[in-house]
């Protein structure tokens, strides 16, 4: 099933590649006729975004072929170091012992804790959130709210949002006592909006959009910092991370051109469509 969808996407490309020269013929942009192959490996969080950007880049540059493979951030680091990949994908900031690599952020990923709009609780500490997700606090009364059981909404296994949430709060998924497990952001937002006792977490971009479009949810601040795409973008919001492309040394040629494209405003719509936060 999954591999079919991927090959479907691949199959569509030759058609686009055939049509584009016709479209671009009048553009007078022939000087940038880059050709060659790029290999990207690493984080499965960054991969969908990298793939979208790569598709668009390939369409603009018919001679270029870009392969995107997942395998986790650590594979991105290893492959960029060894040269197996031209570019590694890493869904966190580089560590001090990785200073041999150069990180190029292409977007930010942030998570907002959301509750029902009618919930009078305006702030929860990290400890309270931990206790709620472990099932040690089971009613809103215990955190200054009404006498109502808490419905804990968790993400399904394998999602990067889950991974970032667990990592930030130092939780293991086996410790979490969930009442509802959701797949995508939209389901999480609808679940919380339909249950006054619910608490959940979704991508900041999706939550902000819903909350400003009359969906009955509220974004809780974290450590006193409001959850918004603005605070994620300027790096103040604690529950966020950069999505990086990493290279060994400053990227040259095709890799450099691709990274510059991935950081440009031309891909912001793609960044938003995956609920990440664009650079600027």
């Amino acid at each position, binding site marked *: *099933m*999954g591999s079919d969808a991927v090959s479907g996407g691949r199959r569509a490309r030759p058609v686009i590649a055939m049509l584009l020269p016709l479209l671009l013929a009048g553009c007078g942009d022939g000087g940038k006729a880059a050709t060659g192959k790029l290999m990207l490996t690493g984080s*499965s969080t960054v991969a969908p975004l990298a793939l979208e950007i790569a598709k668009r880049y390939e369409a603009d540059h018919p001679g270029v072929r870009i392969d995107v493979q*997942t395998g986790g951030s650590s594979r991105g680091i290893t492959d960029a170091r060894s040269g197996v990949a031209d570019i590694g994908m890493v869904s966190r900031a580089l560590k001090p012992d990785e200073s041999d690599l150069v990180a190029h952020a292409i977007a930010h990923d942030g998570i907002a804790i959301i509750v029902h709009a009618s919930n009078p609780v305006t702030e929860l500490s990290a400890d309270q959130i931990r206790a709620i997700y472990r099932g040690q606090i089971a009613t809103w009364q215990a955190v200054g709210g009404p006498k*109502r*059981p808490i*419905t804990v909404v968790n993400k*399904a*296994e*394998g*999602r990067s949002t889950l991974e970032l949430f667990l990592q930030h709060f130092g939780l*293991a*998924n*086996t410790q979490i006592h*969930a*009442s*509802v*497990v*959701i*797949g995508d952001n939209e*389901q999480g937002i*609808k*679940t919380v909006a*339909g*249950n*006054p*006792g*619910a608490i959940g977490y979704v991508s900041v971009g999706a939550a902000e959009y819903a909350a400003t479009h009359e969906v009955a949810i509220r974004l809780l601040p974290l450590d006193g910092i409001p959850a918004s795409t603005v605070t994620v973008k300027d790096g103040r919001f604690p529950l966020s991370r950069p999505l990086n492309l990493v290279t060994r040394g400053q990227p040259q040629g095709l890799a450099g051109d691709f990274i510059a494209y991935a950081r440009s405003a031309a891909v912001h719509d793609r960044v938003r469509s995956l609920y990440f936060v664009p650079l600027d």
Partner: protein
Amino acid sequence: MSTPGRSSPPDGDAALRAVTGLAARLSGTVVVGIALFVLWQAWPALQAVGPLRFVTDAGWHPLAQPAQFNLLPMLVASVAVTLGAMLLAGPLGLFTAIFMTDYAPPALARLLRGVVELLAGVPSVVYGLWGLVTLVPLLAAWQPPGASLLAGILVLALMILPTMVLASHAAIAGVAAEHRLTVAALGFSCAGSLWGVLLPAARAGLCGALLLSTTRALGETMAMLMVTGNVARMPDSLFAPARTLTANIALELAYAMDRHRAALFVGGLLLTALVLALVRLARGLGCAWRHA
């Protein structure tokens, strides 16, 4: 549902025979092919984890260290929502079909049929969405978290009702006219003719309706994913959240790699086995009887 007699076609039908034979073989091959594919994809997990752990592990945490692969809570959830939905939609569908064929004035029967057909045409994601934004909040106000086995059962019952009604209707309406005439000539009451003759005569078709609805219920994915809460824990009440085998695959397959992915296919294998068992059970219960 078809007539049992099988006559050999005359020579002029050779072409038709070839075409139908080819179609039948193709259908059979595809089904067997899919089953083999699922087995092939599940094999690495069956080998590395061992079949026993899929029912004895402490829970379903395929990415934890050490990983846990218990599929039993999801098997139970799948069976529970299906059973619950059949208990509701089975009698409701059958009685609706009887009313449509034998009691309703023709205009009303036509109207009913139209409504049921409309119901059958609604995509499952719409039922799921309705469940998520309407039914689940209602249940949550009463028995939080709302997303539960019960929500799954109610949505599923609504979804299989049209299948049940239409298939039962076809079965009952298909009873030969001479049976009806004979029954009338013998002076049977309506109820007598229904229970004594029509339903037994339609038995094979009705069994088909039940089987079709049940397998449709077992296979439903999207709506269940949206309303049952998807917690991979053994449900201990109707109001407890649960995750069906189908929802498990839909939730995690796109994000799964290696052994996790293979473990999801074990769930698919289990589902296939469940359907096979169901068909056997239906046969065992006498669904193959053609002559009552």
